[in-house]
């Protein structure tokens, strides 16, 4: 397939899939080598990028997803008659921050830092698709581990966890010493 068609095919794939699609899947479906697929995907993402663009193609780790530009949330809400997404509570943001910077973490670790029970918040962050279970820790009780999702990256408009703003040095070390 020539490059123009490949680009259009990828648009079609991202549109239909809805979910994030990995570079490997695209490469496989179009019979491309991975670097070529990665390059076309990134080109498309750049092309769709733009403050006013209605539809965006965002990258999350090695996956790409088509989504709407939050700028147009209001008319979308109106047409779809959706309930507005309530912003996260301070508690939700705190738990999310702890998970994001220390993942994978147990509930006990989160509660240790916040000093309060966090079951409810963890449940609602899971329901919102911002954190997810990541197996269990091989310790007595086998506690569940939590990490952030691809959706979390999209909500922060970053494409990888490495883009999270760094924690000031001193603080990070203290934390390490405590843990």
């Amino acid at each position, binding site marked *: 397939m020539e490059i123009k068609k490949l680009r259009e095919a990828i648009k079609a794939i991202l549109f239909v*899939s*809805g979910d994030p699609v990995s570079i490997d899947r695209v490469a496989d479906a179009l019979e491309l080598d991975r670097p070529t697929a990665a390059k076309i995907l990134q080109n498309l993402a750049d092309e769709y990028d733009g403050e006013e663009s209605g539809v965006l193609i*965002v990258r999350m780790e090695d996956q790409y997803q088509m989504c709407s530009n*939050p700028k147009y949330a209001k008319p979308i809400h109106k047409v779809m008659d959706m309930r507005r997404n309530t912003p996260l509570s301070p508690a939700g943001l705190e738990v999310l921050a702890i998970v994001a910077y220390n993942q994978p973490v147990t509930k006990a670790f989160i509660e240790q830092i916040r*000093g309060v029970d966090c079951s409810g918040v963890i449940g609602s962050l899971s329901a919102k698709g911002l954190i997810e279970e990541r197996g269990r820790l091989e310790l007595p009780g086998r506690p569940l581990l939590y990490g952030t999702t691809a959706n979390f990256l999209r909500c922060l408009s970053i494409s990888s966890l490495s883009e999270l703003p760094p924690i000031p040095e001193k603080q990070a070390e203290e934390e390490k010493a405590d843990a």
Partner: protein
Amino acid sequence: MEKLSYKLPSFEGPLDLLLYLISKNKLNICDIPIAELLEQYMEQIHEMQKQDMDVASEFLEMAARLVYIKTVSLLPKHEEAEELSRELSGQLLEYQECRRVAQSMAASFNLEFFVREPEKIDFDETYRRVHRPEELLAAYLNAAGRGKRLLPPKPEAFSGITHRIVSVSSKIVAVLRRLWTAHEVRYESLFEEKRGRSDMVATFLAVLELVRGKRVRVEGEDGNETVKLMNGGVRHWKLKSYGKQ
């Protein structure tokens, strides 16, 4: 320290409350005057209780912890108190940092990205991966014998305890026979001439099974329930399988 008299803000937890008191009184987080802090902390707790707010157990635990730190700091040797204070300071610093990060994250956080539901497509689900036959054998050997450990004990294992096992299917037939002649019977009458617990249990299960299979309907309430045949009481060919004993 000034007197606290205002509408109570809500706190995320004891650490949140402590940080609030510390910043309000411009205290040094690394060198907390425990006695003063405890006093203000307790005032807040009492205020919360007065306003009928739910004081979570974590707040009370922290109160106990502060009291303990204050107590040991009155002892002539201070080491333990110092260590406990440092621990509390460390925890507060850590939580403060967590809040700072959460706030900076909030600034760039946006829940208004919308995605589409994946299109519904009918797929050919045929499995096309390739496995080595040995994998299959391994799975077989793994499965074989497990049942012995997991299956419920056979009825014979209880032969020394139970007296009579009444099969549910025999009761299904019995209930249906009554309904074919009467079309409608009182629910309780089904249990009237029963000769023991297992007889009653089997009859009860039979009724449940028939309801589930949409063969009968139970109507009414408060002891006036009746059992009716559905489909106008016409015999259904499927019943033959119930009848086989």
